[in-house]
């Protein structure tokens, strides 16, 4: 247990050392999100509501998006594919440490540090746009936020490690990451709440894991999820977690067999 705690601490320390770099990554993660509320407000025009969202709700949706993005979106696959390509993964195979857990803990540490900065930034933004923002009612909304966030966190980490292991098969994994971003940009609710999409798309996405990655956590913050919906999404998340755990295990065992190394 101590070694994973040490992993967590080391990654926090690394994030602190390169503060400017971290801040630029933070900006890179959130700046493009800032564009979208302006686009949608322009689309609203005189309309009071689209897809069940009034203007305050849509601004709030994008207001909390950087928070959900920093806490629940993981890019572990970059680090993993680099380490696999570089051969650094070998040193983990021979150590009494679970590599996928090591990567996940490192990512969580980095993300928690980044989330702290995001909270600070959106608190400053709140001073300017606070009158239009829907504030979560606590503790009522926590009934939705806690289970949804925990499910999403585990599921997204498992997706990230699974994608990272593509590095065992190709050194040009960047393309696969791009295709993953394309799908998630559209299907998770980055562009808009999914109720803005054509009905058939919403039906198609209802049983997929994608809404859980962004749309559902945002709806949980905004207090828009009923008890049935919370149960539905937690169950969908848990089913995907079981599938992903199996896939991670299987792919890791096969991937490790492909590692060739020379020297120390």
């Amino acid at each position: 247990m101590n070694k994973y705690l040490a992993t967590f601490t080391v990654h926090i320390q690394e994030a602190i050392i390169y503060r400017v770099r971290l801040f630029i990554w933070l900006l890179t993660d959130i700046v493009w999100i800032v564009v979208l509320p302006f686009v949608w407000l322009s689309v609203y025009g005189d309309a009071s509501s689209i897809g069940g969202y009034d203007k305050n709700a849509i601004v709030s949706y994008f207001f909390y998006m950087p928070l959900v993005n920093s806490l629940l979106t993981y890019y572990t696959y970059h680090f993993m594919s680099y380490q696999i390509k570089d051969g650094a993964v070998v040193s983990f195979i021979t150590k009494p440490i679970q590599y996928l857990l090591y990567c996940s803990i490192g990512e969580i540490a980095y993300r928690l540090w980044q989330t702290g900065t995001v909270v600070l930034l959106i608190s400053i933004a709140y001073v300017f746009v606070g009158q239009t923002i829907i504030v979560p009612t606590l503790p009522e909304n926590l009934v939705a936020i806690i289970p949804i966030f925990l499910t999403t966190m585990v599921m997204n980490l498992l997706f990230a490690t699974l994608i990272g292991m593509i590095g065992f098969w190709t050194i040009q994994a960047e393309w696969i990451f791009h295709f993953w971003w394309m799908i998630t940009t559209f299907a998770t609710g980055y562009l808009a709440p999914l109720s803005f999409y054509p009905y058939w798309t919403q039906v198609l996405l209802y049983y997929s894991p994608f809404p859980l990655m962004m749309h559902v956590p945002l709806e949980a913050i905004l207090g828009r999820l009923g008890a049935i919906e919370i149960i539905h999404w937690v169950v969908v998340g848990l089913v995907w977690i079981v599938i992903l755990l199996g896939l991670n295990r299987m792919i890791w065992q096969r991937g490790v067999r492909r590692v060739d190394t020379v020297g120390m």
Partner: protein
Amino acid sequence: MNQYLKVLKAATNNAISYLLAYRVDALMKLLLGLGWTAVNLITAEVLFLHTSAINGWSKPDLLALFMTFGFATEFGLLAGGYIKELETNIRKGTFDGIITKPIDSQFISVFGRPDFSALMYLTTRQIPYIYVLWSDGIETSVSSFFLYLFLLLLANIIWLAVRVLLMTINFWHQKLDNLAELQLTITEFAKYPVGIFPWPIQLVMYTAIPLAFTAFVPAEALRGNFGIGTALFTLLITIIFVLAARLLWNKALRNYTSASS
């Protein structure tokens, strides 16, 4: 001058060889271009499910803006192979190999290693737009079209100048290997009509961070809304940013100390 042309010719030959050596890479870029355009087309479809115009821009207008955005940003990626790796080159000391060559270091950093796979990406990224716009029959005049081409050229130069300005910061700060990504992200503001943003953001987009000139201004010219005055103002902005990139680079070089032996 002859020396610079020779370097450009050699760099082009190298880039072609590289492209042929990494064929799968190039093929993937073709698919990637198609994929991102699909995402943008879906975005436009979702937006126009709920409105007929965004700040006075119809769907074909917005697609023309997306297309212009692609041209203005992707040509910049065609050049600048070394400039993208400037951070690593400075940190590891390999920048010495550039600075000690008997040729302008900024020139070699920007044009010394073109990436032709970006051209492949650009092709598949733009063809769907051109097809859709052609089918929808976007209305423009011959003079507007030529003004559009001129402004597009300036947009590329501005975008590249901003990239150089940003990357030059690496001479003073270590480990800022994500500045190029930051530029790409901030450029997202240029993908939509400038009029949708509040006036302070618009002001920034026309001055300090010249995003308005990246796609909006050329696309407005294509719609026939801008004339020669805009072209002259854009030219002035281009000159200012190219000069700024040059001056900052020279200042940075004076601060550069080698990290290698």
